[in-house]
């Protein structure tokens, strides 16, 4: 029996935000009133509410002419927004709209370690099960998932953008006055049944507002169609996404970064 490959582990990664999310078919008779019912499921843990514009439907597709978004508009503007249910310490946030559920963790200044993937997945899947039960009860329909996504956002503060190669395996640019950095690689994810998603590896130079510090924002996103429509079909997708993100993070970061971020199984 082959040994399971152990993922690299970091004691203090520069992780700033983690997002797990699914997109699903909206129930036919969903109304804004039902958002209150969804909030009641999580209200004790997420007492703060905000309403923001809805996210567009997003699907990774393949074949034909690649890379274009749909070419024309139709229909009236959407009448239903996206709800944010926010935890009291504002470290966790639920995003809900008629066809989306997302759980965000974001680092807060006073917060310690990131709660790790297993903890976030457990929280996400429990909440998704609660929403599925609500759908069954209110709409007599199962939650049918058509896309899923896991995103890790890292924030690496630097003195100069030319130091990017100190942390990330990019072409050396020490003797260049680098004004900005914008690097992106998109991988196609395939299984025996064909392509099912994409992996986005994106690095950008940013500035933090409060301290006006230069930083690199390193975003890793695994997005696509899970193996099936139901929650039970999604765990493998998220496990695969987590593994890909950690592996790429490890491969693309330098030995210096590994030391600074406390890589444990070097």
């Amino acid at each position: 029996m082959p040994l399971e490959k152990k993922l690299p582990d970091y004691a203090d990664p520069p992780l700033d935000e983690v997002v797990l999310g699914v997109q699903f078919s909206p129930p036919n008779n969903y109304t804004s009133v039902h958002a209150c019912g969804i909030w009641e499921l999580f209200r004790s843990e997420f007492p703060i509410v905000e309403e923001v514009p809805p996210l567009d439907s997003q699907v990774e597709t393949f074949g034909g002419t690649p890379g274009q978004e749909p070419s024309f508009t139709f229909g009236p503007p959407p009448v239903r927004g996206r709800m944010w249910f926010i935890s009291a310490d504002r470290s966790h946030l639920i995003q809900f709209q008629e066809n989306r559920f997302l759980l965000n963790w974001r680092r807060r200044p006073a917060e310690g370690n990131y709660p790790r993937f297993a903890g976030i997945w457990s929280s996400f899947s429990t909440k998704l099960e609660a929403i599925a039960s609500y759908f069954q009860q209110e709409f007599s329909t199962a939650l049918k998932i058509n896309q899923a996504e896991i995103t890790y956002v890292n924030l690496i503060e630097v003195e100069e953008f030319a130091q990017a190669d100190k942390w990330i395996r990019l072409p050396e640019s020490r003797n260049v006055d680098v004004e900005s950095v914008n690097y992106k690689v998109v991988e196609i994810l395939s299984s025996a049944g064909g392509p099912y998603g994409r992996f986005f590896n994106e690095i950008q130079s940013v500035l933090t507002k409060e301290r006006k510090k230069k930083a690199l924002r390193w975003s890793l996103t695994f997005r696509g169609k899970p193996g099936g429509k139901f929650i039970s079909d999604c765990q493998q997708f998220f496990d695969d996404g987590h593994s890909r993100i950690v592996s790429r993070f490890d491969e693309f970061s330098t030995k210096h970064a590994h030391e600074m971020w406390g890589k444990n199984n070097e």
Partner: protein
Amino acid sequence: MSNRTASRIPDGSVFAADGDRIFQKNSNESVVSLWGHQGYSLQRNLVVHDDSAWSAQLREKLNALTALPIGWDGYHGVPVSFDCARFAVRILDAICDGAVPAPSLVPGSDGTLQIEWHCCGFDVELDVLDVGQVDAYRLNRGTGEEEEIELGVDFTQISTWIEDMAARS
């Protein structure tokens, strides 16, 4: 998160402040990250190239089909769902380049949408049941050969069907 402002930095890129951070607006980052929260499009679809008569026909038809009244079929029919309609647009955008006539769009009473061509020696029907769930059928009228496939998010096969039609148009 509501204290959002925008400013221009020396290289000409527009940056927007969100909370205690600043980020580049033209990033292709995940839209679900709070980093990128910008109040994304209020439109049901994005506009990239919106200038063909072909597009105008489809837009008009989709406007009508997604606004059908409940019971439009004399029973309990519902309008075409935005998800199905948008996925249909995604398919058409990927596989059609104007070399074949605009297809017929036929609503299903359950909110689904059928895309049909009956031309160039073929009958092609794409039954859009849901996002990432399409039953596709083709009849070659010349040979009588029939093909049926189930599509997810890979349109490669039906793209060749459209090429076959285009070759005979």
